[in-house]
């Protein structure tokens, strides 16, 4: 039986090669998307699956309730929470406290390398299943100066030398002795570290003010992570009420951060961390669940379309086989046997498509890994044997569901009806279902295309937009802790450099400072964004003054005295005109008096997702993190070469980080570029699927009507008449589908454009363009078949009938 199914399906495929190709291509392309999602999901669910008793390990998360309403969930929690749990509650078998700020430079033997890691309790090595290749896990982190390295970090710092017992200097934290080296981790983990230093070092560091107040500070819920391993058979409700009790006891009467009203704590199981819900301060490198969901939904929509297509084409094709079904039934087949045959063929087909889609997958994989957002996460799209099992299961499921409808329908035929050729009437009733499927597909395609056009145009608009400043021929270089004066001196002499300025942040990105400001000492202060910059930075960017002038040359580096504000800030301070503001005193940080020396024209200092707001420039060299180099047009490559040479000499530890200013501005929209890429690909798939589906349906229908066409032509119909006749009903379907799509794409387009304060105004035009594109593609598809049918020589088809 199986062999017979196999043979008939292959022969059927070969009998209609074009039809089979259409079918297989459409299915394979969309299946490849499904395969990719399976691959991603499978990979993302391998985080932290190697810890013993993982079901008893939890992270304590913080829910900060804001004064102005709402709340925010943090993966971190106060360090002291861990201490409290450990000392006061018996349900905790073990507690791991982590202070996450061991970031910076590590020096050994006069060589400095940047590292990142944690301070953690010795129990870290006990609770989590990170094995040591060298060193004793039960003592390695006991001493305050103990540190354990990953093999990569050991290699980075020590090369091939044995690191055990050697001292590393962590800049700002002092000397640590290497007491252990980790084995390579048995799998992925949400922890992100190269070094683990003993938390016993923290008390001294806190005393020395090397770290901010942490150990007993209930208000610092940003820098610590607390993990708790519960005893067996502990009721989670008990822990919950304990956490509530802790919150009540320790925050009563305490002065909280101004934006917070209260804190609540909750447990997150270790195996639900990655992938998990979006949390602030999460150090996990797994894709958030919401992204997985988004991708899955997209894949599902596409698979649904392809599956419907497959079903649709199967029905169309199978109608040619009703005679065969009749014969089989007369030969003694029962309904179930015929059903099995068709389901079998469908599954067989899906398996063939799986093979093709696997080829597509290889291309898709690399495209996916090139997306910007994937760089932030740990994603390995490795294939193993289990994966292939999932793939095959996936194909089986697709084949089964796609074949269900045609198989169920076709196996129900009564043989006598089939053999008597009275089927014509019955089959036409199914057209309604198939037609609605077509309409849905064209609606979806049109929506996807219109949305892509909208996103594309908006991104184009953003990246070309005039920010009101000169952002061309400006190179941004991160200072990375280097002395800015020294660098400026070195760089000044490079050919092509016009002027070097400094600032805290680059304009046009989402990064900036903010501070409290007020006009008079007695006024209530308000928060305003500001940049710390020098006069060169401002003149590099060619920022226009409406009143006053740039910072006075030779200002004191220690004592701030001047401020420049923009037009938007005028009203906040109660100035009626720019001129009025010049020379006036303002207060910053409660007590610092600054005099306004200039008022600049409003310009975009944040991404265009935001309205232009009030702004101040202040001269505070201690906050400088960025060098802004204005250079001669065309000298960029030479400049960069010279720059990196000098940089290597001045700072051998950190690689040079430089970008064109406009590129940094446009990088703010990189997330949207990903969305564009993903939806672009989906819309490509969807229109292909819709057109292939349409093609199949038109082919089938015109074949059925060849005799009618011939008769009409003999009776005097022209090619045009016949083409119109054959195409008309399909054109209606396309038109209907596309029209339904118009309001939907308008809504979705608006949903996207809502993100931006400044946006394109011609959205309806783009929707019309989407309509035209989809309509044209549909039209071409339909006419390619109908014109051919209309051109056929009638004598030929009548003769062969």
């Amino acid at each position, binding site marked *: 039986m199986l062999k*017979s199914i196999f*043979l008939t399906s292959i*022969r059927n495929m070969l009998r209609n090669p074009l039809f089979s190709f259409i079918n297989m291509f459409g299915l394979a392309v969309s299946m490849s998307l499904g395969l990719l999602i399976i691959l991603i999901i499978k990979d993302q669910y391998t985080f932290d699956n190697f810890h013993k008793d993982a079901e008893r390990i939890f992270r304590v998360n913080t829910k900060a309730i804001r004064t102005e309403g709402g709340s925010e969930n943090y993966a971190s929690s106060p360090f002291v929470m861990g201490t409290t749990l450990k000392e006061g509650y018996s349900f905790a078998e073990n507690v791991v406290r982590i202070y996450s700020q061991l970031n910076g430079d590590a020096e050994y033997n006069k060589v400095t390398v940047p590292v990142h890691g944690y301070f953690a309790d010795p129990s870290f090595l006990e609770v989590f299943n990170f094995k040591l290749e060298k060193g004793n896990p039960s003592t390695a982190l006991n001493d305050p100066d103990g540190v354990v390295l990953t093999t990569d970090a050991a290699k980075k710092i020590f090369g091939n030398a044995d690191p055990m017992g050697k001292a590393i200097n962590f800049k700002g934290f002092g000397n640590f002795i290497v007491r252990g080296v980790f084995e390579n981790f048995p799998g992925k983990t949400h922890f992100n570290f190269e070094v683990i230093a003993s938390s016993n070092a923290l008390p001294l560091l806190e005393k020395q003010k090397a770290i901010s107040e942490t150990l007993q500070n209930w208000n610092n819920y940003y820098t610590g992570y607390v993990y708790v391993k519960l005893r067996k058979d502990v009721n989670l409700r008990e822990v919950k009420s304990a956490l509530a009790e802790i919150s009540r006891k320790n925050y009563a009467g305490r002065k909280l951060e101004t934006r917070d009203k209260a804190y609540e704590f909750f447990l997150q199981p270790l195996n639900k961390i990655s992938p998990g819900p979006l949390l602030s301060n999460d150090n996990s490198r797994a894709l958030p669940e919401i992204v997985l969901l988004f991708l899955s939904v997209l894949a599902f929509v596409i698979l649904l379309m392809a599956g419907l297509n497959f079903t649709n084409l199967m029905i169309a094709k199978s109608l040619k086989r009703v005679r*065969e079904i009749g*014969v089989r039934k*007369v030969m*003694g087949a029962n309904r179930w046997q015929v059903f099995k045959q068709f389901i079998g063929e469908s599954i067989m087909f899906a398996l063939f498509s799986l093979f093709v889609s696997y080829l597509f997958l290889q291309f898709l994989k690399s495209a996916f890994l090139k997306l910007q957002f994937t760089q932030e996460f740990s994603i390995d799209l490795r294939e193993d044997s289990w994966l292939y099992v999932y793939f095959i299961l996936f194909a089986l499921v697709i084949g089964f569901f796609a074949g269900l409808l045609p198989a169920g329908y076709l196996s129900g035929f*009564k043989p006598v009806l089939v053999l008597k050729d009275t089927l014509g009437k019955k089959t036409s009733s199914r057209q309604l279902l198939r037609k609605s499927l077509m309409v849905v597909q064209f609606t979806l395609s049109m929506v996807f295309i219109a949305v892509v056009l909208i996103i594309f145009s908006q991104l184009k608009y953003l990246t070309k937009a005039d920010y009101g400043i000169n952002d061309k021929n400006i190179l941004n270089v991160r200072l990375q802790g280097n002395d800015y004066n020294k660098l400026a001196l070195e760089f000044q002499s490079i050919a092509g450099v016009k002027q070097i300025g400094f600032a805290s942040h680059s304009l046009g990105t989402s990064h900036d400072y903010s501070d409290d400001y007020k006009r008079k000492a007695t006024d209530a202060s308000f928060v305003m964004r500001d940049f710390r910059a020098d006069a060169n930075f401002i003149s590099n960017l060619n920022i226009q003054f409406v009143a006053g002038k740039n910072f006075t040359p030779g200002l004191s580096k220690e004592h701030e005295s001047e401020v420049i504000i923009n037009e938007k800030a005028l009203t906040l301070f109660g100035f009626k005109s720019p001129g009025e503001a010049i020379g006036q005193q303002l207060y910053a940080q409660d007590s610092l008096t600054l005099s306004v020396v200039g008022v600049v024209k409003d310009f975009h200092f944040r991404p265009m997702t935001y309205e232009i707001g009030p702004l101040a420039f202040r001269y505070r060299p201690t906050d400088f993190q960025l060098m802004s180099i204005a250079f001669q047009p065309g000298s960029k490559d030479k400049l960069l070469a010279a720059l990196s040479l000098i940089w290597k000499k001045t700072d051998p530890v950190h690689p040079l980080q430089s970008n064109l200013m406009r590129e940094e501005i446009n990088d703010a929209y990189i997330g949207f570029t990903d969305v564009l890429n993903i939806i672009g690909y989906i819309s490509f798939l969807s229109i292909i699927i819709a057109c292939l589906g349409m093609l199949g349906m038109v082919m089938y229908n015109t074949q059925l009507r060849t005799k009618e066409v011939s008769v009409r032509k003999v009776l005097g119909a022209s090619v045009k008449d016949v083409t119109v006749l054959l195409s008309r009903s399909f054109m209606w379907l396309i038109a209907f589908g596309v029209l339904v799509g118009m309001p939907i794409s308008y809504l979705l387009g608006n949903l996207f454009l809502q993100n931006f304060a400044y946006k394109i105004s011609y959205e309806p035009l783009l929707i019309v363009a989407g309509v035209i594109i989809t309509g044209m593609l549909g039209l071409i598809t339909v006419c390619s078949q109908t014109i051919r049918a209309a051109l056929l020589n009638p004598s030929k088809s009548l003769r062969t009938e």
Partner: protein
Amino acid sequence: MIELKGIYKWVNTGNNRTFLLKDIHLSVKEGEFISIMGPSGSGKSTLLNVIGMLDEFNEGEYNFLHESVHKLKEKQRSGLYKQYIGFVFQAYHLIDELTVYENIETPLLYQNIKSSERQAMVADMLDRFNIVGKKNLFPAQLSGGQQQLVGVARALIAKPKLLLADEPTGNLNSKQGEEIMNLFKELNNEGVTIIQVTHSDKNASYGSRIINLLDGMIQK
């Protein structure tokens, strides 16, 4: 073997009731070779389909090998004809995607016969009809006569007691037709009961009895 008593079959078109079969009484004994004749639209094929249990009737009794067909459920009915009846069609109705061998084998697949046994049975049949050399060809590669030969072989593979043939020679030239009729005669001599629908007096003469139909009624 077959007892038809007062069989009526009709269709309603608007207020009119058109009778396809009217008061048919017919009994067929095992080993008979019957030809049903009559002009187009007289109900020959309908009668054959009713006998073959492919079509239902509205009134009357039908006993087949002492089973009351009119009382059986669909499933039992198909079980019955699967076991006892073979069909031959005017248009051969071979399955285009299957080879000669596979076409003949198909009914056995549906009776869950073991592979080795199937092979033996199909080989016998190919041998008997002298089409061993054509077993791997597809229907489109055969002449009409050869296709009908395969059709007959397929109908006989499950060793039916009754062979129903609807104008088996209708699409064949006279020589091919004669061959098929001779084959039928031979089969009949071996004990297979045959009922055929035919237009030709010559073909009818191969049979042992002729039933004339006109407007759904048997003419005496």
